[in-house]
């Protein structure tokens, strides 16, 4: 060894490594064009040959909102003027949360061809999933603008509250996708479990019904993290401030989840290539 003083370009050792785990995350963010390009290609590939492109999803969500809006506003005895904006914002946020959860499970599994062929940070695949879903969300956002114009909603200054809302959404999504992605790569039967869990959560979370209907049983939604995540983005778009409880709850899950997931990532990161 004549060059011991030289720093290696790459090195790896068996066992957990805090440095390697931190490097993985840091490198993902310095190499941002990589996952941006990958997620754009995902979108393009999914909608090749269709004129509307990703707006197909937007259109189908629009149809769903119109159809459900008429039926459920009667069912829940709510004025249509109040219900349509509520439903629109609920479904808009929910579809983002639900697809993030479902795609979290297959984030590493579906990236197996990359993971087995070329060295790149593992969290690149996490960012690919997040940015792909945010691009789709941006398309769906058109529905909100249409509904806001029709029903005369102007959130004004409250739009600024989207910044902390999306920041908390991002941090929570980042650890959940890393966490679920790893667990699901190792234990393949968790994928269908999560998928059915997401279905259940949809019905117990105030997405299409107002929490006010629970009348005195408010704790049923207050303990639900998905409710708070919805509120952090839904309320500002209505022109209201979310409750401080929602900020506290989501900040707590962001901190606890990130720490827990980092410890797990530190321990098992290098095993992902062998699992997928």
């Amino acid at each position, binding site marked *: *060894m*004549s*060059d011991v003083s*030289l720093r*290696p*370009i*790459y*090195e*790896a*050792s*068996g*066992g957990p490594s805090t440095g*390697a785990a931190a490097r993985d995350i840091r490198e993902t963010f310095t*190499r941002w*064009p*990589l996952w941006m*390009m*990958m997620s754009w*290609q995902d979108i*393009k*590939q999914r909608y*090749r040959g269709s004129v509307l492109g990703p707006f197909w999803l937007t259109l189908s969500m629009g149809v769903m909102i119109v159809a459900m809006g008429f039926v459920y506003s009667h069912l829940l005895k709510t004025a249509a003027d109040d219900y349509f904006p509520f439903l629109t914002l609920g479904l808009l946020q929910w579809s983002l949360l639900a697809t993030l959860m479902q795609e979290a499970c297959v984030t590493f599994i579906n990236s197996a*061809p*990359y*993971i*087995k*062929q*070329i*060295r*790149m940070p593992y969290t690149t695949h996490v960012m690919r999933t997040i940015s792909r879903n945010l691009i789709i969300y941006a398309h769906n956002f058109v529905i909100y603008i249409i509904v806001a114009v029709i029903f005369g909603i102007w959130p004004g200054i409250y739009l600024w509250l989207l910044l902390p809302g999306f920041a908390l959404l991002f941090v929570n999504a980042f650890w959940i996708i890393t966490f679920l992605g790893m667990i699901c790569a*190792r*234990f*393949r*039967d*968790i994928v269908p*479990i999560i998928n059915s869990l997401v279905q259940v959560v949809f019905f117990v979370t105030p997405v299409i019904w107002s929490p006010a209907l629970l009348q005195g049983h408010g704790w049923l939604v207050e303990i639900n993290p998905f409710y708070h995540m919805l509120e952090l983005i839904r309320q500002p778009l209505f022109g209201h401030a979310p409750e401080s409880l929602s900020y506290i709850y989501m900040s707590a899950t962001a901190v606890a989840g990130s720490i827990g997931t980092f410890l797990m990532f530190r321990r098992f990161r*290098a095993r992902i*290539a*062998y*699992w997928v």
Partner: protein
Amino acid sequence: MSTLASLKDVTVHFPIYIMGSRSIKRHMLDITTGGMISQGKNKVVVIEALSHLTLDLQEGDRVGVIGHNGAGKTTLLRILSGVYEPSFGHISIYGRTAALFDLAMGMEAEATGDENIILRGLFNGMTLDEIKSYAPSIAEFSGLGDYLQMPLRTYSSGMTLRLAFAIATCRQPEIILLDEWISTLDEEFLGKVKSKLKEMAEKSKVLVMASHQMDLLTSLCNKAMFMQHGKLVAFGPINDILKEYMPHKA
């Protein structure tokens, strides 16, 4: 002489999951019942793909890796490229590495040739500016001309490979890793690749390639390592190793 790659006691354990071992349900049953219910059905068989490998690659080493299928040749290349990390031991790489494995991996059929140049370049760790500066020379070497504005799905497999190869080799690396794929190429393209590879290999500091094609190995390599069951059996000048271990291959 300087060391470009250093492996110390590198061991790779491959878990092979059979039957219920990928099931969380079975794991829970095991924990709660002390393994009484599902005993023996969720074994994870561990294969030692590389076993306590210690190796220094010096500047000027052009190493052909030989051995039977399953001897650990591909795993060694994957470890050197950083795709797999060792289960035990330590590896240090002191040079920019080009891993020429599955070259067309990650190329998008719907994207144009130009877009694929950017995509593959990003995969290889280049920045956007770097890729843009290399793009003209990639276009020239690929010889695809106006086809670069067309989607990749309109290319023949030979054209795709030509583009992939041009991207992978646009920047002179210090360490080149080559996998078996080279033996799947057609004669005409192989001729072109061979001269380019030879040129690159001569400019690079270290070359490691796995192949069953002895004429290719002898034309590019000066050293060889013989592997068996994940262990390094012998490492030395290629002619000595081939003389000693060729009977194993037949």
